């Protein structure tokens, strides 16, 4: 659903200073870029450290990733500074690019070092993905089989490919984006439609509650 956007606002003094500094010629601009990089690098380091415990990336590789993310964020920011409309502080907008670069670089790392071979399907791990209690196997085995049937019969080949990669095999979305040469938005949309179809099929067969008024 479309939402109201934000119109450009009057810049706060600090944001205006940043824009002026980045528009300066020569040495003044270089000094502003160096200062900006100094501010972005700790944000990148903190972000990779925040995500680090969940990643199989450690030590110097993690620091390299942070350094590259800060450097690439700086390029993105300088390239898009003309698009900054003052809806937030300049530095909040700038930090966003650091976070996006960290995400992209982590996705690229797992694309280069895949935990699951492409083409594999780890259906036996599906119950784990949703935290089904092994002690209650009799209850969820039938549901897991119904999910697999619905995936095979209700989804388009593209939806099935995306569902199997993300949900069954646990491939990170940003990694799948690279693998398929797609975008996060496009893959999310494929998955959104797949989720809606699967829930409808499972509800129609009594596996999940039917929320639609009047059933079906």
């Amino acid at each position, binding site marked *: 659903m479309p939402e109201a956007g934000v119109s450009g606002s009057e810049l706060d003094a600090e944001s205006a200073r940043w824009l002026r500094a980045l528009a300066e010629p020569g040495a003044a601009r270089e000094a502003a870029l160096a200062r900006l990089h100094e501010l972005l690098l700790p944000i990148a380091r*903190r972000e990779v450290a925040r995500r680090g415990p969940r990643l199989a990336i450690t030590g110097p590789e993690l620091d390299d990733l942070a350094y590259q993310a800060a450097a690439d964020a700086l390029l993105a920011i300088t390239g898009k500074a003309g698009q900054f409309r003052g809806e937030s502080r300049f530095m909040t907008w700038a930090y966003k690019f650091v976070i996006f670069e960290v995400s992209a670089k982590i996705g690229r790392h797992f694309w280069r070092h895949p935990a699951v071979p492409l083409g594999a399907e780890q259906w036996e791990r599906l119950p784990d993905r949703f935290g089904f209690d092994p002690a209650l196997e009799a209850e969820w085995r039938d549901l897991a089989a119904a999910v697999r049937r619905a995936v095979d019969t209700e989804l388009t080949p593209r939806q099935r490919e995306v569902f199997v990669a993300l*949900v069954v095999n646990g491939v990170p979305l940003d990694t799948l984006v690279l693998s398929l040469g797609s975008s*996060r938005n496009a893959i999310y949309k494929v998955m959104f439609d797949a989720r809606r179809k699967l829930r409808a099929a499972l509800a129609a067969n009594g596996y999940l509650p039917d929320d639609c008024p009047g059933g079906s």
Partner: protein
Amino acid sequence: MNGWPALDGFLRTDPQDVGCARAMEMLHVYAELVAAGEPAAERYPGVAAHLRACGPCGEDFDGLLAAIRGEAP
């Protein structure tokens, strides 16, 4: 943990969900509102719906919020 609610919650879709592109475009605005204690989800319900459903965008939001809150003085 009972996986049925987890599966049900995962498969539910919110028609207000704006998708990744719009959420990423608005992320700095949304995060700054949240950091300021403003009712960001009321102002941007479609972004809020998306961040609840999309793991990667939710992770980016958490990271940006942490950056805003933790930046050096």
